[in-house]
């Protein structure tokens, strides 16, 4: 394939196209609205390229299965929505602990519980960060269009492989189900990252969880002779359990460090700022679209407004938002929840800029008019 193709795709379908383009060769999961189209797409496409699809008995199994596949060398992905995301949390934590690269898609619907299965939400922002127990690093990305869903799926795989970590892709039902035209670039134009692997001759002195300079130890595929151990228990560089405090701290510091030392590479955002803004709308996911529309409208009335789109939700763009808060009077955070990411914005903007939210949690979107009203109300 050496030329681009244009298609009309749903966001869910763009996950499949993006995954295939990124080299995904394994999907395991369980059907759930509004994410089932992702499973259906991979079921059809993976075997065409020699990849594997398996529908598991439940969500927990889907998560365990992709971690096993990842350790065996696969580029693995699963997809779910709120109730399933809740079920996956324990094995997600395991993936973080054994540093198994994989991608977990959550097409958010309104919760809690069964909630509103076919309506959009951004209610799992905090769950993406804190859903599994204990402190841990996580990367979560959130696209706002079909085209961006393709791009961020590729990015999700690349970051997962590079940093040996599960990457969460947070769609919402709107992005997951809406159809837009998307131009898929030729395969040779995409940058694809693959995990670092040890060389066979490294076997004698091999420590699977060694504190390498970049804090990311090379990862052998199962069956290549390294015969190493991985466990969800705290462990030392050998991979075997160590309950001692200094070892526990060392492992946590390394797991956090491999992400925190590379924030510039991991945090992706876009902005439309002229530098003289009084008010900035900071948004993510489908809500971005109303933010852009509203900012364009109020600018016509002479309001000094701008917008920022966070594509990386976690780790949070602390430094960027802190600097932004120093420059503007007010930051507006529209969210399809009762106020989740706004807490992060308030934390870093404290004392510098006023931070207000626009919140909907009833399955309907925040409209451009809602955002315009909030911007004008701020003046």
């Amino acid at each position: 394939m050496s030329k681009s193709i244009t298609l009309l795709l749903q966001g869910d379908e763009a996950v499949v196209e993006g995954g295939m383009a990124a080299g995904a060769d394994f999907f395991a999961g369980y059907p759930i609205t509004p994410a089932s189209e992702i499973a259906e797409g991979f079921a059809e496409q993976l075997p065409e390229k020699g990849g594997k699809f398996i529908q598991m008995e439940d969500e927990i199994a889907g998560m365990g299965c992709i971690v096993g596949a990842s350790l065996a060398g696969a580029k693995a992905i699963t997809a779910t929505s709120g109730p399933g995301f809740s079920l996956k949390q324990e094995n997600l934590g395991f993936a973080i602990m054994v540093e198994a690269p994989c991608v977990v898609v959550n097409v958010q619907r309104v919760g809690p519980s069964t909630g509103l299965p076919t309506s959009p939400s951004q209610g799992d922002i905090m769950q993406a960060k804190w859903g599994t127990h204990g402190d841990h690093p996580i990367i979560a990305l959130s696209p706002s269009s079909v085209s961006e869903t393709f791009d961020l799926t590729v990015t999700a795989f690349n970051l997962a492989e590079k940093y040996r970590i599960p990457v969460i892709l947070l769609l919402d039902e709107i992005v997951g189900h809406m159809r837009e035209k998307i131009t898929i670039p030729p395969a040779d134009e995409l940058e694809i990252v693959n995990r670092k692997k040890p060389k066979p001759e490294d076997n004698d002195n091999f420590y699977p969880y060694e504190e390498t300079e970049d804090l990311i130890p090379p990862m052998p595929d199962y069956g290549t002779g390294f015969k190493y151990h991985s466990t969800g228990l705290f462990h030392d560089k050998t991979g075997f359990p160590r309950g001692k405090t200094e070892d526990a701290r060392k492992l946590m510091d390394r797991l956090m460090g491999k992400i925190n030392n590379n924030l510039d590479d991991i945090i992706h955002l876009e902005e439309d700022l002229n530098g003289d803004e009084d008010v900035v709308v900071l948004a993510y996911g489908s809500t971005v679209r109303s933010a852009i529309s509203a900012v364009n409208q109020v600018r016509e009335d002479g309001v000094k407004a701008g917008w920022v789109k966070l594509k990386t939700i976690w780790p949070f763009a602390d430094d960027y938002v802190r600097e932004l808060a120093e420059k503007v009077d007010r930051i507006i955070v529209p969210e399809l929840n009762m106020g989740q990411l706004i807490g992060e914005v308030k934390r870093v903007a404290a004392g510098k800029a006023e931070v207000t939210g626009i919140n909907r949690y009833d399955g309907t979107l925040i409209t451009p008019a809602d955002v315009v009203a909030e911007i004008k109300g701020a003046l």
Partner: protein
Amino acid sequence: MDVNIDKYLRQDKLPHIWCPGCGHGTVLGSFVRAFDQSGLDQDKTVVISGIGCSGRASGYLNFDTLHVTHGRALTFATGVKMANPELNVIVMTGDGDGAAIGGNHLIHSSRRNIDITVVLFNNNIYGMTGGQFSPMTPTGDTATTSPYGNIDQNFDLCELAKSSGATFVGRGASYQPRKMIKLMKEGLLHKGFAFVETLTQCPVNYGKRNKIGGARDMLKWQDENLVPAKKYEKMDPAEREGLISTGILHQVVKEEYTDKYKNVINTVMAGESNE
């Protein structure tokens, strides 16, 4: 036996943490001897275990090993096997890990007939967490969570695996290591889902609490109550009361899951190229 089992054990991780008289070590020893006899490639073998006393087995074994979350070993194993069907995949689990929290995965792995060998350490109790009853604790027995006697029914895991679609089902016991080795070897060489239940004694949290006694008494109990499968089949239901059959209980040939998926890939890819 004349095997050097040392190469299959991580010597520097031994002695193991299991209690004095625990049958898990005997099961582990039987496994490495069976593996040696199977002729399978050590470097192409992955052992996956869950949580509980049995969960520790993987750490003592010199293969690619993975010690996962409670009850989920089969889900990880399914991922490994599907991703690379060339690997031999073995799951070590317990009666709590494999029959309670992981029971659903056992049913569905059996149903798929995926080529994984399961060694289930059945000691009739949650040992590591201090003696709570498991789905394999016999009705009426005492555990820390059934201080007045267990009112739950225990079930027959081999029947469960068989009726769910496992194509190899067998039961061994720590009192009969030779038979257990042979059974495990057959299980390892079986193409398809092989379920091997092993009866293993927990003197600390089960035997003493239920007046069976220590490890030696528990082995005597096995000696008195184990019956070879062939003999068991010929017995009247009344005669079988309280007895447990051992050996290969079920074995059939049926197409294996990753082979079936390979066919899907081949068909799809052939269809693609024809277009």
